[in-house]
């Protein structure tokens, strides 16, 4: 919408190439001239951060795969070999292990941002659903990756999670045997997890391409949740979004580096430095932090099958969010009631994460049940009803006016309270 959106080849070679394969034109229209709403805040950088983290995981992962041995007798030691004898092997492994955490952190921020600003609403439903598919793929990939070092937590996480499928009526036990490739978690399990852990990231890359394609079809949402109307409402992707995103990406890298170089085992569990031992069960089997909320939901339900169903539903329900939220107004900035329920939802999610790390006993179970109930009620009751009863604030006439009223220029009306403190 702003600037020259048609690519003009500057050299004879580029003119030649463009007539045969218009790839430079595609890059130009997608990443240079592409109009982005001018009011995007820093929460919109997390999509770029996720792409960056996917790249980091692929590069470090492929090099690690060159040194790793997927065999129950050698896996643990081959990881230690990487840590000790491979040049910068410690760096590769700590980047990869902490990179997974950073990947999930960025994904969760990205999702909460989408929920806060209503980014899943018409016409971005498919974009959102592709995101939910990406989350599912990430969960699977991360879980299988965690099994590969073949430490105690690896082994027992694999045992606990694959056993969940035994809850399926009639065929459950057969499914588990099929997953294991045997009658217990063993070498075939490790081998297939390794193969899938290598495969799934490329599936993720494919879905990311679709995700970005869908994004470029409908354009970005923005903090005010209104579509751009004039040229003044947008700025060109390059240099404006590029420089802003690069800045935050580097700040994010500072956090990443803090983990990798100074506290590389902070997010891990000491038990995973004990080689896998099928005859010794760890006192507490805890998943990685990014699965804890789902783990809490699983354990909050006393029935195993229903627990597994709830675990699956807690993720799948996200795909229906565009239709569960009935409000025509996107951004929480103009939805005073929604904003409160949203933050309560955020607290519940963090709280479920905390409960997932605690043993399922006493008061913990009770709180986990209340939080699980809220988690589902948020989607199934609160959002559908809220859209019909909530009195929303008037929307600004355009993105430009929204930007100006937040900048508080002379003569402009005071911004709504929600707008204070925005990046």
């Amino acid at each position, binding site marked *: 919408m702003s600037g020259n959106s048609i690519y003009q080849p500057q050299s004879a070679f580029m003119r030649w190439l463009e007539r045969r394969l218009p790839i430079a034109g595609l890059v130009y229209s997608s990443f240079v001239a592409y109009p982005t709403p001018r009011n995007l805040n820093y929460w919109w950088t997390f999509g770029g951060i996720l792409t960056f983290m996917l790249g980091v995981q692929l590069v470090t992962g492929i090099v690690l795969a060159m040194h790793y041995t997927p065999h129950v007798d050698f896996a643990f030691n081959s990881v230690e070999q990487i840590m000790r004898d491979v040049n910068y092997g410690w760096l590769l492994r700590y980047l990869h292990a902490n990179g997974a955490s950073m990947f999930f952190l960025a994904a969760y921020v990205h999702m909460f941002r989408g929920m806060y600003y209503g980014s899943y609403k018409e016409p971005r439903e498919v974009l959102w659903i592709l995101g939910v598919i990406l989350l599912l793929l990430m969960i699977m990939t991360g879980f299988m990756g965690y099994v590969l070092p073949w430490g105690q937590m690896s082994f027992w996480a694999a045992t606990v999670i694959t056993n969940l499928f035994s809850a399926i009526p009639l065929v459950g036990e057969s499914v588990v045997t099929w997953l294991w490739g045997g009658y217990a978690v063993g070498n075939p399990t490790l081998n297939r997890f390794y193969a899938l852990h290598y495969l799934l990231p490329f599936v993720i890359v494919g879905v990311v391409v679709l995700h970005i394609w869908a994004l470029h079809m409908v354009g970005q949402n923005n903090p005010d949740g209104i579509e751009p109307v004039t040229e003044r409402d947008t700025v060109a992707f390059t240099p404006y979004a590029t420089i802003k995103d690069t800045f935050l990406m580097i700040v994010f890298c500072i956090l990443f580096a803090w983990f990798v170089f100074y506290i590389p085992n902070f997010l891990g569990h000491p038990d995973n430095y004990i080689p896998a031992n099928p005859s010794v069960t760890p006192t507490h089997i805890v998943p990685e932090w990014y699965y804890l909320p789902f783990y809490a939901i699983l354990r909050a339900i006393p029935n195993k099958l229903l627990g597994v169903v709830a675990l699956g539903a807690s993720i799948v329900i996200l795909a229906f969010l565009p239709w569960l939220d009935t409000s025509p107004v996107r951004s929480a900035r103009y939805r005073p009631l929604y904003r409160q329920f949203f933050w309560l939802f955020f607290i519940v999610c963090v709280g479920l994460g905390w409960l997932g790390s605690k043993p399922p006993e006493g008061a913990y179970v009770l709180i986990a049940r209340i939080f699980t109930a809220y988690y589902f009620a948020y989607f199934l009751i609160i959002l559908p009803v809220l859209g019909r009863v909530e009195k929303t604030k008037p929307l600004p006439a355009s993105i430009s006016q929204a930007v*100006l009223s937040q900048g508080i220029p002379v003569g402009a009306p005071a911004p709504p309270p929600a707008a204070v403190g925005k990046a």
Partner: protein
Amino acid sequence: MSWRALLAALSVTFVVSLTPAFGQEHEAPAPPKNRWSFAGPLGKFDGAQLQRGFKVYREVCATCHGLKLVAFRNLTDPNGPAFTAAQASVIAAEYKVQDGPNDQGEMYERTGRLADYFPPPFPNDQAARARYNAVPPDLSVIAKARGYERGFPFWVLDFATQYQEHGVDYITALLQGYENKPPAGFTLPPGSFYNKYYPAHAIAMPPPLTDGRVDYTDGSPMKVEQYAKDISAFLMWTAEPHLVQRKRVGLQIFTFLIVLATLLYFTKKKVWHAVELHPEELTPRPPLEYPRR
């Protein structure tokens, strides 16, 4: 999303998780924190301490505990114990290593070389269990394979203060945590010892250290406390041999990233200055109303 709301949300979570009536997990006291030369962003191993720790390992722990991921050549690591190659060769030569098969197809024993790994104290787990009724764990990564729960507010502080020495502090405490008489009401299973820092208190390992058991030649106190610290530091090195390099590279990366972020911030400000909106350019329009579905 506003920072204020985010902060409010986080503080509510904070208060909720501080609420008592949930804690009942650990009866074992938290190990006291020690000052370690390798802690913090500028941390380095103290070569002399690692050499003393190695002496404790060799004269005390090695009877039962292996170090199978460590090679004799590692002892010459300048960021580690920093033995000379000659010293490490002498150490290696004190061990018998199984090699083979030779030309006659037979396995044979020879003296250790720098390239060899520390040989295991037992041929297999069954042999260890037959002798000690337990399998003494290999110590190569034990400093990272042990730790203790820090609980909610503390683990957040640990993130900021880079406290990563849970394992070494635990081992140091464990080695000094033996008590001759278990507290009243505690029945000690036969063949085990009472240790207040061990999770279930009944540990199969007898108290390994006594004052004066290992001769120090550098004038360091020959006390259990000193032995415990030295062996723990040594085990931190075996668990994380590239710790010094990691922290040094980290500092360089950090400096680079912070300078780059600063430059990018000001570049971003300058770039965006060019497209700032001015109110007089806009014609006011009435607010939008979405149609109700």
